[in-house]
């Protein structure tokens, strides 16, 4: 697990985003055990208090759960996991649409380019 964080967004928010991406990618499976807060801090080279904050937030959002003294796990709630993926896709599309609209490119032209570029990258 490698992640590069920027200096202007709260690190805990970036950690949550990172987890969501891993979930969407399928790197984390439903019910999978996740690193302890200390392990995570060490891996991502962040403050353990920040790791703690990210876990607390994710727990509140239902993304992870903890039973007793056992290690925390990714939720088994399929609907929620599906929603995480959809949310990330929508975010990416939003950003994309915003930047092509700002240079007045018609949709038809964009769609063709998107398809070509996507296929090109798949081959690489």
């Amino acid at each position, binding site marked *: 697990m490698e992640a590069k*964080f*920027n*200096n*202007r*967004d*709260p*690190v*805990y*928010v970036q950690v949550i985003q990172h987890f969501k991406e891993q979930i969407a990618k399928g790197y984390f499976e439903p019910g999978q055990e996740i690193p302890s807060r*200390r392990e995570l*801090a*060490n891996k*991502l*080279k*962040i*403050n*353990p*208090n*920040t790791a703690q*904050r990210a876990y607390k937030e994710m727990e509140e959002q239902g993304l992870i759960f903890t039973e007793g003294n056992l290690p925390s796990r990714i939720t088994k709630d399929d609907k929620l996991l599906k929603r995480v993926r959809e949310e990330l896709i929508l975010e990416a599309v939003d950003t994309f649409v915003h930047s092509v609209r700002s240079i007045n490119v018609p949709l038809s032209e964009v769609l063709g380019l998107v398809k070509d570029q996507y296929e090109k990258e798949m081959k690489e």
Partner: protein
Amino acid sequence: MIEVKNVTKKFGRKNVLKGVSFTAEKGEITCLIGINGVGKTTIMKAIMALTPIDGGEILIDGEKIRKESYEKITFIPDTITMPPSMKIKDAFLFMADFYGGWNQLRANELLQFFRLNENDRISELSKGNTAKVNLLLGLSLDVDYILMDEPFSGIDIFSREQIAEVFTSHLIEDRGVIITTHEINDIEHLIDKAVLIDNGVVLREFNTEEVREQEGKSVIDVMREVYKG
């Protein structure tokens, strides 16, 4: 918690600290930031009562520092204080003789972590490795608070990364840490609180995540505002 309250200090006629106040919590990393000569080291020495202060007060967990406090708080200066002729293992013995809270297990663990050899003589170590031994000796004490003066200064990038890694590990555990630095880059993500100092006063004290969350600013953004604005 370490509370520094309105501390003043003069060297001759020069006011070095002009009413410095800030707090450092246990379980958090507090970073004193400022260019050379603004009084960072003097503040550390004042907390340790290594230099007398002219006004204000400093409390550690609500108490003034006394002899017994030195088992609870330790200061790692920016240069090693062990005699250079000692081997690393001699330095261990020296520390064990002087401090009840010396933790040999942790010292061994840190030795491995930093890939140091206890049979090496301190005088023969590289600058980076000397800095690591210096840090190791302080970190191996079972104290609640650790003060580190410029732990990243003048050493290579890989040693810096290795030292930064200590902060995210169990080796710091839930202790309170105060470090001074003039280069924040390596450790922006590691610290809980920044205290910006200039010319013997605290210009701003803030929680780094709060500033990112509420103002969308990095520590360096805030520094630019405070020092140049």
